[in-house]
């Protein structure tokens, strides 16, 4: 967990506008709360995309 208001530079870096925002390996990936299975699929997808880029 990162408290967005205490670390404004980091929040700015990832463009945090609404919370929760989940950053996957340094890239903003999921906004909001999702059911577990759905959330994990988004994370794994972001991980794959990060690998490709």
């Amino acid at each position, binding site marked *: *967990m*990162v*408290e*967005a*208001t*205490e*670390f404004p530079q*980091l*929040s700015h870096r*990832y463009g*945090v506008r609404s*919370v*929760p*925002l*989940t*950053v*996957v*390996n*340094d890239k903003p990936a999921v906004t909001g709360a999702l059911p*577990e*299975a759905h959330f*994990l699929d988004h*994370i*794994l997808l972001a*991980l794959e995309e990060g*690998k490709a880029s």
Partner: protein
Amino acid sequence: MSLLRENDRAAIIKQFTALDQPVKIINFTQKFECDSCQETRELIEELAALSGKLSVEVHDFVENKDQVAKYNIDKIPATVLVGDKDYGIRFYGIPSGYEFATLLEDLVMVSKRDSGLAEDSRKKLAALTMPLHLQVFTTPT
């Protein structure tokens, strides 16, 4: 002055009956504590006093380079939850508001040595071939 009110404390003690194995809460702060550093440390100390299964270690972010490196801490206040091993759980900033509930739940999970994840999620995660670093940004409200 204590941060936890009497009825909060009673509710937390009730939730802590679910604790099983010991959990070490490692807090990183510094000599001249920022407001949230001091509050975070006090909150954790008050919390740990509510169960014999919880212990606290406080480290100085500036002076204790070994521990800072060991837990890979790059900002404070930082709170690390450790069970039989370091599961990579970090709270940066004060775990207050909704995140206080998250902290309590995480303490119980670490104590049970069980993430509570579904079997299917565990399988997918076990198949990971590269490091996965998750940062969840939240606000205290």
